[in-house]
């Protein structure tokens, strides 16, 4: 099982209060730095190549947005210029990654992302409400994540392999889930499976619900990537994204 594939990785986090005057409305979340630092340390320990680590004022909305969708977007040089990207912090429901910076705004809108048209294969959005259950998970997945996986002019309907994130507003203060995830994928566990195992809450009343969303040319292709896609696939892509397949633990 262990394939010891080394990949390029990058980490961003948002652990402090919002920048005054921005439209964001969050408060400090120190746990996000704990998650991010554990991811960084673990990825380094497995010999993965660090492309960038930016936090708070240095983590920008433009890192996520594509220039075809937002003129200031620069995702091809940042989030889409690494195999594995991990963000820990705040999110606005079905709307954005929310950042403690104001570089052309504090929100990286999902609708302005075109994920995986470059090097990006796997994106972890360790934040609330990237998917909701209003009215159900299926509707929310397609409503929010169809367009960010539509590709760009040079890569129509092509995208990243797997997006790992959370359903709903529950946030677990288990700050080691990112480290568990990186450890598991580094030893060869499929990426989607590793995320679900690392991130689902084993106790408490407010249960976080991790979800893995994969792209494919058709149903079987997307399902195979969702259940079997590993870091060893880093040189495959961008992959077709005519179909999405997802799994989550509830």
């Amino acid at each position, binding site marked *: *099982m*262990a394939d010891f594939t080394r990949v390029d990785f990058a980490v961003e986090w948002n*652990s*402090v209060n919002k920048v005054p005057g921005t439209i964001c*409305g*969050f*408060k*400090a979340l*120190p*746990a996000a*730095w*704990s998650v*991010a*630092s554990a991811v960084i340390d673990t990825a380094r320990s497995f010999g993965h190549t660090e492309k960038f680590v930016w*936090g*708070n*004022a*240095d983590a920008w909305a433009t890192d996520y947005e594509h220039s075809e969708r937002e003129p200031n977007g620069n995702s091809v040089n940042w989030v889409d210029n690494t195999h594995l990207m991990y963000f820990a912090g*705040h999110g606005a*429901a079905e709307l954005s990654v*929310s950042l403690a910076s104001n570089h052309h705004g504090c929100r990286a809108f999902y609708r302005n992302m075109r994920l995986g048209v470059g090097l990006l294969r796997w994106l972890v959005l360790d934040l*609330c409400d990237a998917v909701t259950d209003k009215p159900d998970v*299926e*509707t929310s*997945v*397609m409503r929010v994540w*169809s367009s960010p996986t539509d590709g760009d002019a040079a890569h129509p*309907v092509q995208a990243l392999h797997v997006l790992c994130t959370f359903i709903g507003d*529950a*946030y677990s*203060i*288990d700050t*080691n*889930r990112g480290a*568990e995830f990186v450890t598991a994928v*580094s*030893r060869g*566990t499929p990426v989607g*499976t590793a995320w679900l195992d690392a991130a*689902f*809450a*084993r*106790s*408490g*009343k*407010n*249960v976080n619900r991790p979800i893995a969303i994969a792209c494919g040319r058709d*149903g*079987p292709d*997307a*399902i195979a990537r*969702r*259940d079997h896609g590993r870091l060893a696939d880093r040189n495959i892509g961008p992959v077709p994204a*005519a*179909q*999405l397949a*997802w*799994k989550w*633990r*509830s």
Partner: protein
Amino acid sequence: MDHHALAERWHTFDVSANIYEVDSAIEPLDDLLELARRAGLEGVSDGSWNEIGPLLEIEHDSNVFTVYRPSRAVQCIDSARWQVDDGVSTMEISDEDAIAAALEEVNHLELVEHDIFRPFRVTRLNVASAEKEGISSQRRVVDIGVVLSRVIDELPVEGQGGNIVMYLDTNLQITGFQRIARRVAGVHEPVHGWRPLDDVLSEVETYWEISFDSGLTVEDARLGYLELGRLEKQEFIQPVYGLSLRLSSQENDEVRTVEHYVTAATNGIGALMPSDSGPASQGRSK
């Protein structure tokens, strides 16, 4: 819960408990090799272990048996079937039947050892897919994960550790399991007393920068022990208050729900919630 209800709950917390010291030694591994054999990894021996970062692993056909050295947690999975969708199967099973099936496997594998575990939650692995702009496939459930919580001094253990999770497929065949139950070396100290409610609420209000009943709601409060996840070293197992919080007016005026843990004993050790926001800005310019 309002203040009165919380005060009532606090009265029920007057029990006898201890702060325990964890045995951090990973050796000997004999008991884990025996467990691996019971799980179907025949012929394994001391020389079978592969070291992968913080993990010790044995692979046998599609079975992977992993020991997490920081916690001595164990995970055993059939990599061909664990969290894998065959594309057609679906399961409809009650929580009661799921727990009964899981307990049968727990007994077969002798996973309880010298500890006590109680059924806590049944989780379900849901799958679906859809063509862009198309109709999504019907949601199916392809496995159940039954969580059993460790019990110490009649108190449940909370956190990512202190549990057994049994994964069963649609035929109720086991696809994997994990067990995180750190070995206790002995009593470090008895609990001298319990932290009062107002002291705890004040700490929570300060942490989240939000006032009780003015945006902060406590939905549930529990007394238990805390065990951390598989990759975390832990020196002591101590009593904690587990608070299920609801925070209003968060990002985009949305609600957030979190589990907040604080030490429960007046002689509790350390802070449980992260407080370090990380390094200062590097002054990024491009």
